[in-house]
């Protein structure tokens, strides 16, 4: 049996759907008799629902509307059979998935053998996001120049309002212990933190950052040296600055 505190630590996971089946059952049993945890769930749920609204807002292609309405209009009697055989409906995308599996599978396999799946998956996610930015129709490029503290540093920001920011830097000096580089999108109103930038031993680094789709157009992108973990507004020395 888990203690109350152990169970309460699972509240966020419960609301997010992140518990395994056994944990979930145990939590639900507890929930039935613990008013504190029930209240906790109710207070966390709106925060999770709100996440859906924070993604970049993109309209589907106009022709999708007709396709979807046609499919449901004609599907009155097909709905029943679909419900009974959900795997059939997936036929089209199975072919697509198979193609993707063949294309990516070979590369993935070699790395899986090295048991670096976790690292790989994280990189895969980054690259998926990165390639989405690079192929964005609204891509903008901002080159950054090294400032007096780091005259050799160079960086490039590729920004899409709908898909986010890809930031690549080179020749940054190693961040001192307890410090980290932080990337800022400077709008006319205020600098908005994109996130922290991790550099390799050569002072280079590439990172994808989510940016809110309704952010004001950036007037500059900058990198500052801040306390490790980052800060809400820039306080440290500027290392790189660039303007569109």
């Amino acid at each position, binding site marked *: 049996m888990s203690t109350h505190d152990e169970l309460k*630590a*699972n*509240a*966020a*996971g419960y*609301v*997010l*759907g*992140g*518990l*395994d089946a056994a944990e979930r059952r145990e939590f*639900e049993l507890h929930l039935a008799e613990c008013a504190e945890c029930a209240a906790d769930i109710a207070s*966390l*749920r*709106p*925060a*999770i*629902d*709100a*996440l*859906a*609204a*924070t*993604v*970049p*807002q*993109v*309209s*589907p292609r106009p022709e*999708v*509307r007709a396709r*979807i*309405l046609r*499919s*449901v*209009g004609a599907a009155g009697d097909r709905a029943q059979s*679909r*419900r009974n055989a959900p795997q059939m*409906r997936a036929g*089209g*995308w199975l072919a697509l*998935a198979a193609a993707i*599996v063949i294309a*990516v599978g070979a590369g*993935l396999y070699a790395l*899986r053998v090295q048991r670096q799946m*976790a690292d790989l998956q*994280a990189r895969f*996610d980054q690259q*998926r*996001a990165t390639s989405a930015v690079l192929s964005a129709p609204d891509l903008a490029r901002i080159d950054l120049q090294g400032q007096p503290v780091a005259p050799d540093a160079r960086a490039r920001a590729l920004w899409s309002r709908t898909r986010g920011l890809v930031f690549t830097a080179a020749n940054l000096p190693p961040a001192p212990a307890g410090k980290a580089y932080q990337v800022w999108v400077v709008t006319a109103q205020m600098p908005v*933190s994109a996130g*922290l930038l991790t550099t390799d031993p050569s002072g280079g680094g590439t990172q994808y950052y*989510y940016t*809110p789709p*309704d952010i004001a157009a950036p007037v500059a992108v900058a990198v500052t040296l801040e306390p490790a*973990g*980052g*800060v*809400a507004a820039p306080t440290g020395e500027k290392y790189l600055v660039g303007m569109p």
Partner: protein
Amino acid sequence: MWLLAALARMQPAAESQAEDAACLRRIASGDQAAAGELYDRHSRALYSLILRIVADETEAEDVLQEVFAQAFRQASRYDATRGVVAAWLLMMARSRAIDRIRAKRTRFEGRTGEVERIDQMPDTQPDAASMMLTEEQTRSVQRALGELPLMQRMAIELAYYEGLSHSEIAERLEQPLGTVKTRIRLGLLKLRDALTHPNAQSPRVGGPMEGAT
């Protein structure tokens, strides 16, 4: 005073909820025009969430179609006491999009079975207290999300957009399970504060350093 202001902000959301619920009733009674209306009101928000999760336009369109098909099928069973229509639709969109990337992940990893369909999880049901967000609240939550320490934000995003379990996130981020749980909780509390006090600059639980360890 804040209560009046909050009620004033909720008013449009309450109205569109009533219109949505009416729309579903008309769909249930076979009104084709209502299907188009529901599509026009929600397709952008749903497509955006799906696209963020599956990261592929063609697949996102397929998932969008599945979501509307499910919504139209279940229109007659929709129960307004269980939550607002927008949250119900978004929950279905997230479930189906995550099912899809999970299926793909399962193929990559050569595993079968043991992947649970997220829409069978009762925890993702919307709550009657949930409401649609004002623009102000959306911006506030976006800002709060951007201000979260990187590891907190990554843990939340892996859970929400990738549908990973706590233990999968711990493995992915190479962090102890307890640390992951704490980070997700702290991050969500900050988002909740941003939602409750959308006007406060940088609402936070603890300082920006606290999640850095």
